[in-house]
């Protein structure tokens, strides 16, 4: 019964991988790699299968809000269930996570030291991520969220570079601080929603149906939104991101920027906006200001950084700001754009971090002032970096463009001056993005070779190629044929939009 549900396997496979890794000897790199490759391929396959199955069911006209649902009692005294279910957005998020875990495995092919332990924590992290996206019980969701956060401390602290202990501590503490707010918010949502069969429920579908006590919604909205916003790198809670990313090892940066930051955005709409629609209507403006600042601020900050990872981290602040900004617009098009931006940013930042890791592994520096003309030395990596850059600055045909345009056109539907001003500020970011991306491309890849020692460096190896090609194919896929994803997301937003509009109508009465 439990194992009959396809979604559960997203958690079981990483757990099996954990066990498999546990059996490997610390020195046998091949065994560790085969466990990881088999596991991550299985996850990718599962995600693709789920995606096809989901689309098939939707095609057949199954119009439940969540599909593949299942619920098993876990801790009866507190009425906590292991409840799972997915809509189109979760399916895409699972897909994204699987792709990035897959690419991340290959990107950390030669991780050193302690490869076994690295992958153990890596698998634990992915367990948390997958668990988060499949859960519809807000307690288990939170639990998986924490499972995903904790390994980050060790992964950065042990395998990182630079001021790794400081960064790991900062990242963990800030995210834990966010979690504290989040826990308060979730407990509030749990206790302040009406009872079902004599007990308060944690199931978000039921809570959404019943509604949370209106007098408390505002406070809970702020708590949950800030809690998830910290993870989504919302200004002014973003400072863990530059330091954390800069010090993290390649695969962790990929997974963190690619997926973990998306947990924030996902949580924001799945919990804050969906469960607390009234407060979302009333208080969105505060966070629109903050995220609007994030977008421009992150982009401007990125312009003067010299460390590749810092540039990317600040650009993530800008792009993730765009995600939350779009979600707060509370209309279907903009929110769809927000999700597209999550996917697009996930893929392209993962690609960026993978490439930065590969370049760093060769040149042993990430300072753009000490590199130059790498295009001539490693053309493959150079071209990939350029593609990632173009995706980031929104070149048509790559995913960034689709996402940004959907956000802009969606956001522009709110006709009041306040929204207009912020939308126009947000659009300005496309120019600033172009500035910092081209600055890096110009300094890093083009021009004369800065350091003659670099001339002897080699181009990408097969596993690095596999990792980058996977990501590039996805980026180009979304960019060239966006409509099916777009429609899947739009359809999934219908109940959420309905919830928001209902409260709007109530407020009008």
């Amino acid at each position, binding site marked *: 019964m439990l194992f009959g549900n396809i979604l559960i396997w997203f958690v079981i496979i990483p757990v099996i991988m954990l066990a498999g890794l546990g059996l490997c000897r610390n020195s046998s790199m091949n065994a560790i790699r085969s466990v990881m490759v088999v596991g991550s391929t299985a996850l990718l396959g599962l995600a693709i299968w789920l995606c096809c199955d989901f689309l098939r069911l939707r095609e057949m006209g199954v119009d439940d809000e969540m599909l593949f649902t299942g619920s098993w009692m876990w801790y009866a005294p507190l009425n906590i269930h292991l409840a799972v279910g997915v809509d189109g957005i979760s399916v895409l998020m699972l897909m994204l996570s699987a792709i990035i875990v897959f690419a991340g495995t290959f990107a950390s092919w030669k991780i050193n030291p302690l490869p076994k332990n690295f992958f153990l924590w890596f698998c634990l992290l992915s367990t948390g991520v997958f668990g988060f996206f499949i859960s519809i019980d807000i307690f288990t969701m939170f639990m998986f969220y924490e499972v995903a956060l904790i390994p980050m401390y060790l992964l950065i602290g042990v395998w990182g570079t630079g001021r790794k202990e400081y960064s790991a501590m*900062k990242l963990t*503490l*800030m995210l834990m601080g966010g979690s504290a707010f989040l826990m308060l918010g979730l407990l509030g949502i749990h206790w302040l929603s009406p009872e079902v069969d004599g007990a308060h429920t944690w199931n978000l579908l039921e809570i959404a149906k019943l509604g949370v006590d209106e007098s408390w919604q505002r406070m809970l909205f702020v708590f949950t939104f800030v809690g998830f916003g910290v993870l989504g790198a919302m*200004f*002014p809670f*973003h*400072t*863990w991101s530059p*330091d954390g990313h800069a010090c993290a090892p390649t695969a962790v940066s990929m997974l963190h920027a690619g997926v973990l930051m998306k947990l924030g955005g996902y949580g924001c709409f799945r919990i804050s906006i969906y469960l607390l629609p009234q407060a979302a209507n009333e208080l969105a403006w505060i966070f629109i200001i903050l995220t609007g600042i994030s977008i421009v*601020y992150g982009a*401007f*900050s990125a*312009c*003067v*950084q010299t460390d590749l990872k810092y540039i990317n981290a600040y650009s993530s602040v800008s792009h993730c700001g765009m995600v939350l900004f779009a979600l707060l617009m509370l209309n*279907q*098009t903009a929110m769809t754009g927000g999700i597209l931006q999550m996917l697009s940013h996930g893929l392209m930042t993962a690609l960026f971090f993978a490439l930065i890791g590969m370049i760093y592994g060769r040149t042993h520096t990430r300072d753009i002032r000490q590199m130059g*003309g790498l*295009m*001539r030395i490693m053309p493959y990596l150079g071209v990939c970096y350029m593609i990632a850059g*173009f995706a980031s*600055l*929104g*070149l*048509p*045909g790559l995913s960034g*463009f*689709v996402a940004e*345009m*959907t956000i*802009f*056109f*969606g956001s*522009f*539907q709110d*006709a009041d001056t306040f929204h207009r001003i912020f*939308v*126009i500020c947000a*659009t*300005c970011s*496309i*120019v600033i993005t*172009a*500035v910092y991306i*081209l*600055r890096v491309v*110009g300094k890093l*890849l*083009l*021009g*004369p070779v800065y350091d003659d020692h670099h001339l002897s460096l080699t181009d990408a190896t097969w596993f690095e190629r596999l990792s980058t090609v996977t990501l590039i194919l996805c980026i180009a896929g979304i960019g060239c044929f*966006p*409509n099916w994803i*777009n*429609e899947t997301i739009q359809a999934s937003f219908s109940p959420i939009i309905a919830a928001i509009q209902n409260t709007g109508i109530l407020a009008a009465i």
Partner: protein
Amino acid sequence: MGSTLPILILAIPLFMFLLLGLGGVKMPRKVCGVLGILGMGTTMTLAYIVALSYFFCPEFTVDGVRQQVMVFDQTWLSFTDTLVVNLGFLLDPICAMMLMVITTISFMVHLYSWGYMEHEDGFQRYYAFLSLFSFSMLGLVVATNIFQMYIFWELVGVSSYLLIGFFYKLPSAVSASKKAFIVTRFADLGFLIGILILSFYTDTFNFVEMTSNPGQVLAECGGATFMGASVLTWAMVLIFTGGMGKSAMMPLHIWLPDAMEGPTPVSALIHAATMVVAGVYLVARMFPVYCIAEGSMTFITVVGAITAFYAAVVACAQIDIKRVLAFSTISQIAFMMVSLGVATDSPYIKGEFYGGLGYMASMFHLFTHAMFKALLFLGAGALIHAVHSNDYTKMGGLRKYMPITHWTFLIGCLAIAGIWPFSGFFSKDEMLAAMFESHWFWGAWMTMVAGLTAFYMFRLYYLIFWWEENPEYKHHTPHDSPWQMSLPLIILAAVSCVAGFIPFGEFVTWNRMPYHIHIELPVAATSLTVAVLAIALATVMYRKKNPLPERMRNLFPALWTAAHRRFYWDEIYQFITHKIIFGIICKSIAWFDRHVIDATMDGFAKITNCASSAIKGFQSGNVQAYVAWYFIGAVLLAGITWLCFI
């Protein structure tokens, strides 16, 4: 007509891009070059078939009006139920005309590059990028909706970036490509906001819907105003900003002269004939809506007029021959802009002046200009190929060494100067006629610019081919280029000789009804006289080496320096971008982030740390201290209990 041919026109260049881009490294150069040329040749043939059958098949003309044919239109992305982005193929007169222009020039450039780029690294990459550009540019002109145009607009921008930065080992090429991309990107921001506004009110992107009924567009905007101007005007002016960026209008022209860092054939294709006229094409595409958006046409005219004059003056004081041509391009495009700006959407009535003449003339000039400017650039390429320098100071007296280049270049110069019977004369005459009819001032002003054009082009011509021979020729004798390069020059020169006699008005007018071109004699006489006088002046000054130019320069040294330095626009931009945006805004934000926001977060940690170390002294590990504290506590508790309860 089925949709197979039109799809192939787009698909072949795209396929060539993917093929050469992904597999080019493994191919020998010859194969790559031949594949690229064959691909483009096929595309050109198909484009001619499509365009000519559109112009001459009666099925596309209903009641004397050429129809706009939506060959195909596929949904690409739907924002909302009504606001849907399609990718499609809209066939109408300007599109058909542009298809011919683009594919012709592109084919010539493909052929020419085979000779020009033969010894360069990255030959395969070069052909891949050329194909990408051709694909994007074709996609732009066939766009069925403004969003599709924006998509391909960005793509031509990026192909231009890649091609300008083709010699990526040179820092100057890298910064030029960066500059080109960022300046046009900034302009595209305006374009994007314009589309946002327009689509918000009209709820459509479709060109046909907007242009066939501009009155409804105006009605849908519902008289909403912003800062004194109607939103429609705002939208159209912002959209035009995009055009200003791509077409290098003031003050967004600064990227085009620098873009000459790219290979010369690329300059011919992108920065002279096709991409830079995208702005003109955009205005022409939206022409009926521009006519109805109050004030926007005046804006276009004024911007065009200022730019035309500015660029012409600067062109007189440049040393680099490609820069002269670049400024001449800016000036000529501005000519087209002014001509569009003075046009009105009045239908043709016998006996009255035809308001749409400016539109027709602008498109005509776009067509002729593409041909002769590509010719001039390719000629310049042949010169650079022979002398290995961009400076005219390294040239002079080349007419004996390079006869083919000399004669074709001369034809190009005569065409751009507007001498009968070369093509430029006809299109310029129509434009000037339209301007004079709108207001004498525009006519007079632009006639002056036309005179300047003739002057600086012949200054260039004489300095290259006459003046005084460079002594270095003895060591390294320049000679004409191989056939791959000469053939395009000859073909384009031939086209420039005869293109003026095409009855262009029969094919392209704003309302797609035929109009019969006739030469406006007074206008033609004036402009011809002015041009001849300017050429005479140039002949006097530059035919033989003499001190006259030096004396002229010393007469107004400040003016010459200013014109030579392009009136300091680059320095102004440098100041704004580097000093203000980079130095002040970015730096201070980055500082703020590290020292305020991050410091606050670190501050929390520090406070916790301090509090902890303040109280950790209690945990001294010293049992005696514990006992003492314990004892004091016990006594105090006892005392309190005593006082309270007993």
